[in-house]
């Protein structure tokens, strides 16, 4: 144990060094101590690191990912000057072989009418309080929000691209104009060929929402396509009236959750509560008399649930209790 061996650490001098208040004499003392052994030097650098991480650990920051990606992307494109089609002959043989095998299987399935593939489906679940990212077989990207499930069958990307969503997800669909990409959200469906958009389809919400971040999407109910949306538009299906309406929305706000941010813009308390439940994986009970009375505009990044409730407390006279996974919010009388 190196720890016991170097109990002669000149703490006071080291700390003065860290605090930049060391005298010349002490500095010489320190150098002498450091010169004595490798172990002393190791201990010293350990203490410096401790000082660094404990006294001045910088704030957690949320970098601008979009910008960063743009930068990385442009640098990559620059360096990708010469494409090199270097398929070996083995590659060709393998590809041919795969083709033969696939045709065989295709014929076999076709003739036997066996939809074996179709029955093999993938289900990705993002539990409460967690978010998941998925790369689909067609290289489309899906961010799956807390408390959500995404399903797709084994034939995804063979003939068509279809996924079933419960909960909320952000899709960045790879362009393929010959294969439509469809998101089924209960009776609602969203058809696209290569765009990005957010779909919200939680069972406990009164509405289903589709918000477009780029390109054009087509939204319909189980029978037919009803609305075509472009960037900045949001389709809202009211589950009680079954009416589909189109409004304007801020796509960045709607999909902020995928960047580990939650943005509220004049959002009613009941909505905020639902988000917080999913975000932190808790059950929140609010006093009935609070419903419909308060709207909030704020942003959550890496705060804890307590910190958020404290923020709400500043604007609204509430008290809260956290009991494991249960949170109770009430007015202060």
């Amino acid at each position, binding site marked *: 144990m190196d720890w016991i061996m170097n109990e002669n650490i000149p*703490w*006071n001098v080291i700390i003065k060094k*860290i605090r930049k208040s060391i005298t010349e004499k002490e500095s010489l003392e320190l*150098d002498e101590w450091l010169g004595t052994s490798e172990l002393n030097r190791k201990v010293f650098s350990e203490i*410096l690191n401790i000082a660094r991480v404990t006294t001045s650990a910088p704030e957690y*920051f949320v*970098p601008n990912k979009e910008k960063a990606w743009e930068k990385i992307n442009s640098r990559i494109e620059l360096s990708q000057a010469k494409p090199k089609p270097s398929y070996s002959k083995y590659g060709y043989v393998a590809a041919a072989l795969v083709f033969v095998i696939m045709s065989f299987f295709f014929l076999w399935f076709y003739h036997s009418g066996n939809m074996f593939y179709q029955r093999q489906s993938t289900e990705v679940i993002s539990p409460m309080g967690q978010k998941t990212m998925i790369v689909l077989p067609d*290289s489309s990207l899906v961010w799956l929000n807390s408390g959500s499930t995404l399903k797709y069958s084994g034939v995804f990307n063979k003939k068509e691209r279809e996924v079933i969503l419960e909960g909320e997800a952000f899709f960045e669909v790879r362009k393929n104009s010959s294969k439509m990409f469809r998101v089924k959200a209960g009776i609602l469906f969203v058809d696209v060929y290569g765009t990005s958009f957010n779909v919200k389809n939680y069972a406990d919400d009164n509405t289903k929402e589709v918000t477009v971040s780029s390109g054009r999407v087509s939204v319909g109910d189980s029978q037919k396509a009803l609305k075509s949306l472009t960037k900045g538009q949001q389709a809202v299906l009211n589950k009680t009236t079954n009416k589909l309406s189109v409004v304007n929305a801020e796509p960045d706000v709607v999909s902020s959750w995928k960047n580990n941010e939650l943005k509220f813009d004049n959002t009613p308390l009941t909505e905020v509560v639902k988000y917080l439940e999913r975000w932190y994986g808790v059950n929140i009970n609010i006093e009935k008399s609070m419903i419909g009375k308060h709207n909030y505009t704020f942003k959550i990044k890496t705060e804890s649930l307590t910190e958020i409730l404290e923020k709400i407390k500043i604007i609204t006279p509430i008290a809260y209790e956290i009991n494991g996974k249960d949170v109770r919010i009430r007015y202060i009388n």
Partner: protein
Amino acid sequence: MEKTNDEEQFIFRRMAEGDKIAFRFFFEKYYTDLCNLVNIYLQDPVVSEEIVQDTYVYFWEKKESISIEKSVKSYLLKASKNKSLNYLRNEKNHQGIHEKLAVGAESSYEIQENTVDVKQLRDIIGSAVEKLPPECRKVFKLAKNEQLSYVEIAEQLNISAKTVENQMGTAFRKLREYLKPYYNEIFMFFLIYISFSI
């Protein structure tokens, strides 16, 4: 949230074959965490971002020749660490704590699996400070401000300067003890290392 390594290996293979979306997956998944980890040591968000971006560009350019031994996460972390070290060496930007300090080539601590959870790391560090005895913690927190002298801290807390000095010693001794089990996690960069060439 954690994917199994198999799944990451699969996505990495797709990236190695030139699938940029697979590359994007790793960007989305680790970028923020890597920036924050690098930033703990470099204490400059702008530079930290640049370094992590460099890492990703390198990751993409070398995708065909990279072999992922442990996980993509630890690969990216290691690469970011090396780039941080280079940065400190080249920029001579470490006019920090000790003039005679240089940057060590390799840390004596191995990069472990699952080290990238910055929030957990911050919690560990934060709770170590909170675990200090109350008096000691007060002194330590005031001393974070380098402008405050021991005498000034002593005045604020109504104790003697000698007590402040002793409490600071205790604080660091205890922090070192508390953080000992997490050295691997905390000092995986181990940026500050002494070169002894005076």
